[in-house]
């Protein structure tokens, strides 16, 4: 408990969190502070490029045991299963309709890469190592949740089976830009290893945290705008779900990670992935395949409630639990 609090405290006062809070406050106060779309996308490409490459170099340095394959499978299973948990929880706590609940559930099975990046930064700062292949697990967890969400929605009569079969949708999901860049950079980092790292570390290591801080400022701005514009959309039940589901997801991640025998850092990251909710890949897929679901609900929950929760309290919590569980 002591650890959690001390990690949480130092976490809360890091520039990363504070810039997120600045963005949130600025947009709740209706400041016109804003980051151009192209710059935000550029930073997002940078983060995927850097985190993927670093993960690959990590694998090149430490070797990938059979554990890599097992971890990928675990990721796929978690991503596919967590929406069911989320759906049941959500329908239990709130009176949300099936389609909206299915769409929300899909977000919680999938992952938020920036939460993962922020957690990696916390690990790096505390000198806790982790399996480099966790970024591949992150990529593997992006898409399966979408399938589960469509299945959940279709059980209510909506013919999601047809939708899911729609030409192009699956290609779009599996080959979406973030997955391709993350996995591609991972593979390139793996192939080129420490030599490759030496070539580009002046770009992907030195300025990394600063870019992340600026990106979190933008996330704060968007989250705040979302909260402002969708006031009244989320009832207290939904808000409760937004902070209860992350630890629940993390618990599943913990169980899976212990089965896999991950290190403390790897375990914490798998918990973070399980706890986080998508705000890029899944919303896009839902707009295409479940247009009747209200985007205000799932975007506000994912970006406005769960993301800040994980960033501030979740990460230290999961890290403390992972430390305790691995005796680290």
């Amino acid at each position, binding site marked *: 408990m002591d650890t959690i609090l001390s990690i949480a405290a130092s976490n809360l006062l890091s520039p990363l969190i504070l810039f997120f809070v600045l963005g949130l406050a600025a947009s709740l106060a209706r400041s016109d502070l*804003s*980051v*151009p*779309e192209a710059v*935000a*996308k550029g930073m*997002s490409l940078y983060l995927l490029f850097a985190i993927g490459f670093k993960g690959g170099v990590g694998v090149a340095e430490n070797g990938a045991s059979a554990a890599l394959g097992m971890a990928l499978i675990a990721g796929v299973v978690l991503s596919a299963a967590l929406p069911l948990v989320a759906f049941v929880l959500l329908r239990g706590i709130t009176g949300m309709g099936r389609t909206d609940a299915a769409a929300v559930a899909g977000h919680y099975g999938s992952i938020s890469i920036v939460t993962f990046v922020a957690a990696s930064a916390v690990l790096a700062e505390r000198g806790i190592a982790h399996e480099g292949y966790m970024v591949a697990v992150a990529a593997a967890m992006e898409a399966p949740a979408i399938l589960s969400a469509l299945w959940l929605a279709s059980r209510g009569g909506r013919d999601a089976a047809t939708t899911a079969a729609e030409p*192009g949708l699956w290609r779009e999901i599996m080959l*979406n*830009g973030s997955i391709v860049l993350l996995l591609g950079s991972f593979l390139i980092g793996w192939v080129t290893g420490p030599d490759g790292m030496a070539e580009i570390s002046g770009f992907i290591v030195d300025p990394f945290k600063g870019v992340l801080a600026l990106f979190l400022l*933008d996330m704060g*701005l*968007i989250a705040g*705008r979302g909260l402002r*514009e*969708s006031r009244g959309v989320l009832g207290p039940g939904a808000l409760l779900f937004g902070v209860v589901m992350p630890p629940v997801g993390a618990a599943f991640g913990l169980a899976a990670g212990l089965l896999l025998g991950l290190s403390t850092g790897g375990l914490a990251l798998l918990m973070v992935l399980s706890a986080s909710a998508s*705000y*890029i*890949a899944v*919303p*896009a897929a*839902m*707009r*295409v395949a479940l*247009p*009747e679901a*209200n*985007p*205000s609900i799932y*975007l506000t929950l994912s970006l406005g409630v769960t993301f800040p929760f994980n960033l501030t309290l979740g990460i230290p919590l999961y890290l403390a639990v992972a430390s305790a569980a691995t005796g680290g």
Partner: protein
Amino acid sequence: MDMHEAKRVEITIEAVMQKRLTDALKAAGVSGYTILPVRGGSGRSGEWSREGQVSRAGGMVQVVCIIRPDRLDPLLEAAFSVVERHIGVVCVTDCNVLRAERF
């Protein structure tokens, strides 16, 4: 100058649906279109803005299509099949064009 009657169809639609719409237009025999970026907007589903977005889900685009009047109906049917379940606006204006052989 020599002008010819035509229709200007302007379809405002979510960016994620852009490719589906243009594919449907092509299938309906539309020979050309122009896509304009959209910065923000407001409608029944609320207000939104492009700024700071990283999500592909966020934005909209405007697809502008100039066609010969007799081709309007197939175009509208194609457009409607895509827009139907989605948010979006379809607006048709009479216009005149130079170089009618292009349309």
